[in-house]
């Protein structure tokens, strides 16, 4: 009877419509959890943690000489997305990625959207994410953002809002797959009852996405994953994805440019590389063009890319559409390129570079969330209602000094999901990141990463700041007709 006394406390809850009343699709899950004693739930939680620990996807505890390693916190109570909600999310994501891709292509080529005055040109050229060396680039098949992970949060009205588009090197997909593998062992009986949609074919989809952009005439392309190396915090994910596709995992030092082609150093000599899924940031990928001191990258790779002898995923330069100030314009970007109204909502965003917005932000620092436009991971952020006067003062100074670098948004009342804590089950705030692939068409994996702020009352879900993750169940139920057909093969 672990859920009997569970309280939603007025927040939108991912499993409960109201206290004691589960959402219709969540009933079997709620009943199952409720039937388990607290002790049994804790036993299963421990078992899940042991599986994750054994799988070795651990990170070193900073400053610990004994080599203590930890897993990313994981909570066994899954988050659920109904078939109806998923259908709308999927359509919204597809529309967004389609439009943003056209936007990036336009920005680095004709710049029509600037000439038409839809976005002020200075917003683009003042962005640290605008990469001049990418001007005139035309990536294979016109695709820039092959892999993306859109961040959503759900407000108290139950609506999903897009928070970030993550079009550069979104990480976390391996947690989606691993969390699922674990939960299939921890709560096996639920999967059939609830028609949970599978995620395990992600590697197949990714491989096909990458194969799609191979240079012409390469029927059996040499596709690789490029990692900064084993000390990168996402290394295990890079290895995991290479393993899921059965392709080599290379480091910069394994690759070399000769005759405007990229080669990898193999035991049998040099072998040409055709497609690179690179998990190295734009600035580090080619010291000839970007950061000169980068030792992670491959000198000359951009030359090869321009010549079309090698394909990169994602294309360099996509970060311009990730700039948090540009984000504010996405509804206009969708309207401009597709002539459609946005399906997914944006969060109302104040651009500190604009005088009226800045004045409002400075007046209301105690109510707003302020974010640095080019930082992620919960860094460079002020959460107004939870901040001290001193912090507000500090941010006011920062904003006045460099207005282009800050935006502000109203504090959303993030939805919560029942979560196992020391004393039983309590609501904790969550967000949601589904992953999409843009190959022949745009495919969104029916699942995603649910991050959960494990600290009571906290709104920060980032793993660097006390966040954990949950498995996410997209239900294949019957409340939307044709839900299955919306998935692309």
């Amino acid at each position: 009877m672990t859920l009997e006394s569970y309280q939603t406390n007025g927040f939108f809850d991912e499993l409960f419509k109201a206290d004691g009343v589960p959402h219709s699709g969540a009933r079997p899950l709620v009943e199952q959890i409720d039937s388990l004693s607290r002790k049994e739930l804790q036993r299963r939680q421990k078992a899940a943690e042991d599986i994750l620990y054994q799988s070795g996807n651990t990170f070193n505890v900073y400053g610990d000489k004994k080599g203590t390693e930890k897993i990313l916190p994981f909570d066994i109570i899954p988050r659920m997305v109904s078939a109806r909600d998923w259908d709308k999310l999927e359509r919204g994501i597809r529309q967004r990625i389609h439009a943003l891709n056209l936007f990036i292509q336009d920005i680095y080529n004709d710049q029509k959207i600037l000439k038409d005055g839809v976005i002020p040109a200075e917003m683009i050229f003042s962005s640290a994410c605008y990469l001049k060396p990418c001007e005139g680039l035309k990536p294979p098949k016109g695709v820039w953002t092959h892999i993306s992970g859109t961040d959503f949060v759900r407000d108290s009205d139950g609506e999903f809002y897009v928070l970030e588009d993550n079009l550069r090197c979104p990480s976390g997909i391996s947690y989606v797959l691993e969390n699922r593998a674990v939960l299939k062992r921890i709560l096996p009986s639920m999967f059939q009852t609830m028609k949970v949609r599978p995620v395990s074919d992600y590697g197949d989809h990714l491989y096909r996405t990458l194969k799609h952009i191979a240079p012409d005439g390469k029927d059996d392309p040499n596709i690789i994953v490029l990692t900064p190396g084993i000390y990168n915090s996402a290394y295990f994910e890079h290895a995991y994805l290479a393993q899921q596709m059965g392709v080599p995992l290379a480091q910069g030092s394994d690759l070399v440019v000769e005759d405007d082609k990229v080669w990898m150093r193999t035991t049998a000599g040099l072998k040409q590389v055709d497609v690179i899924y690179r998990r190295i940031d734009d600035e580090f990928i080619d010291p000839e063009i970007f950061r000169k001191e980068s030792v992670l990258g491959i000198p000359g790779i951009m030359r090869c890319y321009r010549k079309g002898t090698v394909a990169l995923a994602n294309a360099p330069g996509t970060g311009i559409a990730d700039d948090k100030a540009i984000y504010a314009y996405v509804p206009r970007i969708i309207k401009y390129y597709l002539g459609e109204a946005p399906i997914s909502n944006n969060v109302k965003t104040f651009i500190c570079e604009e005088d009226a917005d800045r004045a409002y932000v400075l007046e209301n620092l105690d109510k707003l969330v302020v974010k640095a436009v080019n930082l992620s991971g919960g860094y460079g952020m002020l959460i107004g209602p939870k901040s001290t006067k001193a912090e507000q003062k500090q941010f006011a100074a920062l904003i006045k000094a460099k207005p282009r670098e800050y935006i502000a948004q109203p504090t959303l009342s993030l939805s919560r999901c029942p979560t196992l804590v020391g004393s039983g089950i309590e609501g904790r705030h969550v967000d949601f990141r589904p992953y999409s692939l843009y190959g022949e068409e745009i495919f969104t994996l029916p699942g995603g990463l649910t991050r959960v702020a494990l600290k009571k009352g906290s709104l920060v879900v980032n793993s660097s700041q006390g966040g954990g993750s949950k498995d996410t169940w997209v239900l294949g139920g019957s409340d939307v007709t044709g839900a299955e057909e919306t998935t692309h093969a």
Partner: protein
Amino acid sequence: MLSRVANSIYWMSRYLERADNVARFADVNFHLMLDLSLDRDSTQWYPLVATSGDDEDFNKRYKTADEQSVLKFLTFDEKNPNSILQCIFRARENARTVREIIPVEMWEKINELYHLTQSHSRKRSLADLYDYYMQVRQAGHLFTGLMYNTMSRSAGWQFAHVGQMLERADKTARLLDVKYFILLPRGEQIDSAFDAVQWGAVLKSVNALEMYRQQYHSINYRDVTDFLLFSQAFPRSVLHCLDSAAGALKSLAPECKPASPARTEMDTLTQTLHRSDAAHIIADGLHEFIDGFQYNLNLVDEAIFRSFFET
């Protein structure tokens, strides 16, 4: 296959085999002491250090060569690059860089062994240590079993196999060498009951006792030398390991750069061994023979590096 990856998979395998051998030697020595009713401060521990080849380092940092200090040096000494702790750490670091190549279960096995080692290294009791050696050996068997039963015989497997075989040949030869020259310098003990127990322990530490008995029935140093160096049937004999490594190198031919020295060096070494026999070696000096063998084994290792890993 990427050169860096091939190098890592080769060393992953070598380090695991090394850890496994150290655990074997220590465990068997312990049981030998019980058989001989020797006290724990006995001089019988130092030869283990000599087998590892790290005696110089040991002499610098340790005052006595009793059970406690020898086992600490061989097992959990962080400064000894060939301690079990360091071997398993490095095997895991190498495995981490080849995770996309090896089956998931193999990675998990190494990872588990690493965590087991970490938690054991914090304990102090010698009794726990012998449990730990048993677990290391079992993990070694599981790992090799997984490798044989779940990995395609493509380049990755062949590199892992070459690494394992060369390391095993090296350790078997060292064991024989040390046993022969340090444990038994006294002529009057040769072929005594004491001798049979000692050589029995040597056989046991490479899992050879039963297989040896089926061939020779009684234990003496000449037959043990013959068996451990030249048995074509026993999978841990030096000759068997080398033939097996040579076979793997042969199947790696398409992975190899042209004019690769690895096979030439390997063939030279195996041919030398095929032409030798125990009686002549003992007459001419076993130590000199094994010294020469190890020199040539290093040449093979260097040639493999130049043929496959160097870029």
